[in-house]
């Protein structure tokens, strides 16, 4: 059974970076969405992923709104959500973690950072933390 991650970002470059960084991982399938609303549609169609990476600032439905809705539907309890954002001030990170994100990855990040997060969270549940991007 393959692990599935869902990448939610309105930047085609970030989505491509995920494909390039994680495309090598044998047992991993990558799904993508451009905003929170589309993410819920993908989940409805393909089932719940093992891990969600989501940007904060996006049109239609942003990352924090996705987290709020995910908390309401119970998704947040079942699937770890990791924020990937350019907004890297302490209060941004605090807001993200308070909204229910398991980790907060700052852009720009290295491909290895993504691999580490996937191995840590898509395999098992972990506690909240803050991963500093490079």
């Amino acid at each position, binding site marked *: 059974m393959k692990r599935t991650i869902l990448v939610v970002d309105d930047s*085609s470059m970030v989505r491509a970076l995920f494909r*390039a960084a994680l495309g090598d991982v044998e047992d991993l399938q990558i799904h993508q969405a451009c905003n929170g609303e589309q993410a819920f549609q*993908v989940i409805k169609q393909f089932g719940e992923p093992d891990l969600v990476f989501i940007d904060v600032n996006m049109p239609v439905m942003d990352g924090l709104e996705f987290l709020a809705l995910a908390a309401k539907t119970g998704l947040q309890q079942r699937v770890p959500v990791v924020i990937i954002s350019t907004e890297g001030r302490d209060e941004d990170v605090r807001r993200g973690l308070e909204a229910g994100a398991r980790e907060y990855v700052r852009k720009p990040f290295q491909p290895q950072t993504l691999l580490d997060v996937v191995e840590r969270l898509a395999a098992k549940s972990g506690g909240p933390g803050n991963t500093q991007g490079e």
Partner: protein
Amino acid sequence: MTMDGKMRTNPAPSSGSESSNSLASAVLAALEQVDRPARSQAIAQAAEVVEPDDLIEVMSDGNDSRRRSAAMEALSRGGTRSVPALLRALKDSDPEVVMFAANVLGRTRDPAAIPHLVSLLDHADPNVAQAAIDSLAQLRATVAVNSLVKILDRDPWLRFAAVNALGEIGDTKAVEPLASLLSDETIRLGVVEALGKIGSAEALGHLALMLHESQDSSTFGACLKAIGQALESQPDEKLLENIGSWVRLSSPEATDVQMRLAKVLTTSEEQTFAGDHGVGKKEASAQLVRALRLRPLYTTLVLAGCDPTLREVLEFCAVSIGRDISPALGVGLSCSNKNVRLLACRCIGALGSSDLVTGVMALLGDPDETLRAAAVQALAQLRHSDSTPALTPLLSDRSLLVRNAAVGALAQLDAEAVTSALVHECAQQPSIRPLVMDIMRLNPHPAQLSFIKACLCDPDSVLRGKAIGTLASHLGANAVDFLQPLLADPDVSTRRAAVAALGQMHHSSVNQVLLRQLETDRETRADVIHALVSLGDNSVASRLVNILQGESGMARIPLIEVLGQIGDPAAEPALIKLLATEDAAVRRAAVLALSRFHSRVVMRHLVAAAKDSDIPVRRAVVEALAQHTDPAARATLDRLCLDLDPEVANAARRRTETVG
């Protein structure tokens, strides 16, 4: 926002600045609504009525991400209107504001932003530079290609962004600089994807070389998908024949690549990536087999049809390859997988591979209805008339799909062979005769006549009706003598079918026959009138008038309506006379019929009818007079505007305005 805290808005010509300010304030406040439909509406409004500088201010406030996202969306939707404010925001001291402004500039789709975005490529904050690169990609900024190429030796984050942008922009100038990065493992997959998006012959050449040389499965898979995408930009593969690395893929030295392609095509699982609109690996492999004419993989290509989602692309590939793929299609016909059999059958029909007809005929007994229908269609496409005796039993197949396919096929094959097989089959299965009539109508032959005439006398009225239509299409006007007795058939549907058939025949005796029918058969009267009108019979009006005068009550209304449609002046006196009849519904029908007549006599009587005691009649008079331009008609309409009945008066006012 101004110094006193008020909102700036676009000046609105019809409203004061205060109301504009309050609208803009309300819209801005609505941007933070939790309810998403309401927020979407606020975003749409904000894009039009709120000053872009005020939206920039909201965008700059990092304390509410929802409001910030909404403001950015409004600025994006504002398009060119937002650009000056966004360009000012690029000078902000906060890099985050600059980054968001750069991000939104790409979404405005305004090329005026391009030089400003290029100037940000050297920004100290990599997120700002990346936002500018992403926006240049969105704007398909070919003028920025050289500047983006220069970033390819910067830090990995920006380098990846530039690679992605160069792919999105799709300019061939970027091919060589990108190809030089293929040796760098850290960025190779991104470069491969970008080259696939550019899709030029040169890009394809580099991808072919990479495919050949790739050792790991992820590079091979990425190359495959990129080639699949590039081939979409290369509709004529012959133009690729002078690209060495591409041609080498079909040579014996690329056997290992071909084996890997076969493996991809036979793998049962194809990963479906939600949100990924690119070409799948299997689809790309099939396109490679097609474009390179990799004959050893033709059977593998056909067998890949076990995945029904690939059917369209595989059909395209097989038909593009042509008859050379026939042996592989033969293998597909006997495959245990029904999707493969279906693919093979459809391709054989499309290619006209007559040598495989035996295999196709074997599918006529397939348990799957889709396959039986596909086999029938393929035999029709192959024009294989020898299969006619095998097709006729399918007219009584349990599946409607198959029965319809059989009718379609038998309508196309050799008429003589079809007739013989149909007559033989009807002896075994009389219930198929209505379908046989349809086929004989579409595929006529003189040998069918005796059979059709026999059907005209059959006790089954449905069959008689079908036989009438078929005989008429065979004999044309010569069928009159055969059809005439059927005008007295006890079954009304048979009589109607006979009338309809006669209505298509321009023959001197037809009009007389129909006029007699008009006077003797009430049940077919409407059909006869329709037939006579379509035959252009100018005596029909006077005949109808005679019938009308012999009728009473509501039975007169359909006749009146038809006389109105015909518009023959011969009907004027009779219709005018009806304006004095006691029955108001008949008077109303007469008024409406007379609205098609434009003589002064008619107009004067319509003017008089404006005094009718019945409201619906006066309402009809309004409609009728509105068709006339005569001053008396206009004056009467004016009077009707003051009618005691409000409905009549309103109708007259509306009409007066329209015609006035």
